[in-house]
């Protein structure tokens, strides 16, 4: 999710911010995060990159509050002579798509330039997935000789002075030395070739999506005319980004010209062709649960920037989030106002039911709580240091965990010992238990991992007789027979450890912890435990 920050002054040059407007901003589906004397910060959901720019936001919001309703039309001029971008096939392996435009008659203030750069960056990081999917470049047209070529060359053939550096560098060095180069190097460095925009005099304009050249890539207050390019890995996404930029410039007073892209086929960008979609007022009423007429529906759609006539909705090219009728229905619901929807509890007759597993789990927990045990609830992940300390084999590890918890637990023993150690100064005796899932790799399973429910009980201080008494009690209360077989287990004392057999199956163990283990983890008191798989028990109980 992305937050956009607009200048309050610029926002208020169109709409005065009042308490009522603040609430409307929220109800428009763009939560107002903060507002100060100078700035207004708004959260924009990723399906609406068209409102990342102030101009885009105001276009949509003005319609929403009824100021300028319906689909906004933009005049886009056909390509003039030499408004051409040749796409060389060498880019297909590297960064296959581009969409370009020319904008004339702009006039920028320093503020405008800052805002423009912010909007460009916002689109490239969110919609553009950190420039991977989409990168954007904007250039002063007057320094460029048209037509333009989009091509890819090897590093040794590339040498230019990037923005912000004072001499020419090779492509490699730009990726190594330039701050922006370093940040985005991973997008290009594994390719043998790097993408480039060249003008007709073979001057390098930029190495997208990294950095423009100093000579042809700096926008100033003097800049009037622009060349805009978007490059990336998906044609639709690249064209969408260009449309958002083009409409923004148009709203700033610019005159938009298409460019002809000569790829395998010829086509012109930006393509402002509107989308037409059928809508049924019946579907709207059914999905939202409100009563409205077709007229009202048309009115609501117009407040979301659409124009609807005869059940056909015309949708702006910048609204490519509209993929299906349901997207329009949501727009209608937003225009209708979520605050105007009246919650209804319907009479859909069904029988409620708790799962058998939940019920049994709850009963076992209650049974143990009744005899003085406190239930623990620990994470399903354990720490790296615990994997080492207990020499866990075949650990199920997480990729790049941001926490100190790095692996899925394979038993409840490790978590319980952590908790008891943390509580070593709490009043004794301590009687605790936990019921939870443990994990094991199993290629037969769909996720490659099997999950089983286990129960662990621990008493400290206690010896093995004490834990066996409780085990006896447990099986007596759930009315199952069990037998035991002496066994041995890491961290438990030999001769005081046994397996628990139910219905011929080994379902767990009980025993007394070895003092070496207790010392290793920092426990002060003797501890006895039992750990049991519950699946067999669940099966036998019913």
């Amino acid at each position, binding site marked *: 999710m992305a937050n956009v920050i607009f200048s309050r002054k610029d926002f208020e040059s169109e709409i005065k911010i009042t308490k009522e407007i603040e609430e409307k901003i929220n109800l428009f589906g763009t939560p107002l995060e903060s507002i100060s004397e100078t700035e207004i910060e708004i959260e924009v959901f990723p399906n609406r990159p068209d409102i990342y720019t102030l101009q885009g936001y105001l276009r949509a919001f003005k319609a929403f509050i009824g100021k300028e309703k319906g689909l906004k039309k933009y005049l886009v001029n056909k390509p003039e002579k030499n408004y051409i971008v040749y796409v060389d096939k060498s880019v297909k392996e590297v960064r296959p798509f581009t969409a370009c435009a020319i904008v004339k008659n702009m006039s920028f203030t320093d503020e405008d330039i800052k805002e423009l750069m912010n909007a460009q960056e916002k689109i490239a990081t969110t919609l553009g997935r950190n420039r991977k999917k989409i990168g954007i470049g904007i250039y002063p047209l007057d320094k460029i000789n048209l037509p333009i070529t989009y091509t890819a060359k090897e590093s040794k053939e590339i040498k230019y002075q990037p923005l912000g550096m004072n001499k020419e560098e090779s492509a490699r060095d730009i990726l190594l030395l330039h701050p922006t180069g370093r940040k985005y190097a991973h997008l290009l460095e594994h390719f043998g070739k790097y993408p480039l925009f060249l003008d007709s005099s073979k001057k390098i304009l930029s190495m997208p999506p990294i950095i423009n050249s100093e000579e042809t890539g700096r926008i100033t207050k003097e800049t009037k005319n622009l060349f805009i390019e978007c490059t990336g890995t998906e044609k639709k996404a690249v064209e969408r980004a260009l449309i958002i930029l083009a409409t923004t410039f148009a709203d700033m007073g610019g005159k938009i010209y298409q460019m002809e892209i000569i790829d395998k086929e010829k086509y012109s960008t930006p393509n402002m062709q509107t989308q037409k979609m059928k809508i049924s007022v019946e579907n709207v009423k*059914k999905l939202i649960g409100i009563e409205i007429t077709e007229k009202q529906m048309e009115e609501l759609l117009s407040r979301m920037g659409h124009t609807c006539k005869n059940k056909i909705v015309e949708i702006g090219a910048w609204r490519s989030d509209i993929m299906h009728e349901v997207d329009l229905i949501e727009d209608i619901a937003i225009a209708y106002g979520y605050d105007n929807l009246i919650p209804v509890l319907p009479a859909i*007759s069904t029988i409620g039911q708790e799962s058998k597993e939940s019920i049994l789990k709850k009963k076992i927990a209650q049974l143990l709580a009744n005899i003085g045990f*406190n239930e623990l609830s620990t994470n399903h992940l354990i720490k790296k240091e615990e994997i080492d300390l207990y020499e866990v084999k075949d650990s199920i590890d997480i990729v790049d965990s941001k926490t100190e918890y790095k692996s899925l637990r394979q038993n409840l023993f490790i978590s319980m010992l952590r908790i008891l150690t943390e509580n070593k100064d709490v009043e004794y005796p301590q009687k605790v238990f936990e019921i939870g899932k443990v994990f094991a790799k199993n290629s037969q399973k*769909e996720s490659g991992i099997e999950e089983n429910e286990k129960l662990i009980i621990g008493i400290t201080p206690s010896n093995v007789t004490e834990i066996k008494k409780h085990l006896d009690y447990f099986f007596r209360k759930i009315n199952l027979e069990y037998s035991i077989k002496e066994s041995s287990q890491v961290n438990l004392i030999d001769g005081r450890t046994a397996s628990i057999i139910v219905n011929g199956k080994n379902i767990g163990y009980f025993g007394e912890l070895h003092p070496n283990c207790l010392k290793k983890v920092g426990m002060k008191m003797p501890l006895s435990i039992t750990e049991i798989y519950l699946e067999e028990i669940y099966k036998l109980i019913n």
Partner: protein
Amino acid sequence: MDDILDSLSLIERTVVPYLHKSLNEIIEKSGLDKTSVLRALSFLENKKILILKSEQKNIVDIGVNGIHYKKNHLPERNLLFVIENNDRKTIQEIRAESKMSDNEFKVALGTLKNKALIELKEGKIWLIGKKEEISKRFPEELFLEKLPMNIDELDEYEKKVLKDLSSRRDILEIHQEKIITFELTEIGKKIAGKIVSTDLIEELTPEMIKNGIGNKKFRKYDLTAKVPKINGGSTHYVNQAIEYATKIWTDMGFKEISGSMTETSFWNFDVLFTPQDHPAREMQDTFFIKNVLGKLPEKSLVDSIKKVHEKGIDGSNGWGYKWAEEEAKKVLLRTHTTCLSARALTQLKKENFPAKLFAIGKAFRNETLDWSHLFEFYQTEGIVVDKNVNLTQLLGYLKEFYKKMGFEKIRFRPSYFPYTEPSVEIEIFHPERQKWLELGGAGIFRPEVTEPLIGKEYKVLAWGQGFERIILDYYKIKDLRNMYSNDIQNLRDTKTWMKT
């Protein structure tokens, strides 16, 4: 008055006859030790019979050497004895005869000189004190006899002695002492000195039950007195809250579903129309499992999901990218419980409709722990599947649930999720913090989600919100991390979930 007397414990009864006396006398007469007497007095104070007072006092008492001198005389006295028998001998001779250490001898000699009992003439010691002066006890000796004494109560003369003796090693010892006195209240004055029977029944024994108690009386207990704390067993308080939430859903006719926490990306993301380059599918947001590859379900479902992503369904556009099976096979810890709903949908048969399902299960996010974020948390998940379900009904179910969880004021905002349209964000009004809190999302599953899973006919209302946030306040927990700290004393002390 009799009431009070009846309620007295054995030790209280033992001291009552001597209450008009001083503390030391009570100790002496009652035959109890000091600690027991003080305990009895403090019990009596609780019964408003007396008021205890304590005062800090500086006490001068006899020191280690003082004890020795008291028994064997002060060095000056011993020296005086030697000189009496050896008048006008040289210092060296006297010194040898006295068998004293250098230091002791010097001090003793100096003291006798100061008291004008001896005189040094031509290297010899002359006894000059009168007979009665010599036999009279020194003030220092008298002082030692009187110890311990309260420094504040010494007279001028005693103060001088104190000063002199203090300069000599370990004869005196000064310490602070709490002096306890008490004052009788009006009731106390009536009770003091009374002889009360000490023959009351304390603990009832099996013998008394068997043989009867005759005319004996029970001692009355002070039931307002504090008692030691006991600990009991308990289920985890989060589980108690889950049990309650489960009941809300089952009461509304919902059936519980469950499933694994490890899941393929296919079920966690792809069937939920989340494009494969969506930021949530990156490592920094999701716990992916290292070196484990999952399996995809039957080909027909995989193909239809691929088609939905690439081209959409009838009347829709899709995401327009190339969908990759490998990406879908990545295994992760479910980032939401919505994958349970997705799986459940595929298992529903015609006769199961309409269906209302719920789950309260763990979800996982690769997040740094802080007061408002857990990397492992519960979500309360639900779906309603029927031909004619709508947004206002979705809001109805949520409103009802949160009302029963104790949140009367709830509001809904537009939101966005790749798999729902319309989408809703739920906010509850927090009565204590006096502000709106975001709880999480809900919506109606997009046709791109439902068509491949259950076909065109049915619509699905769906929601999944974080659970811990809504129970924080009930348990007065400020920091989410403390929810699962498993502090055993805290588990013992935390109140039981009592909402009904």
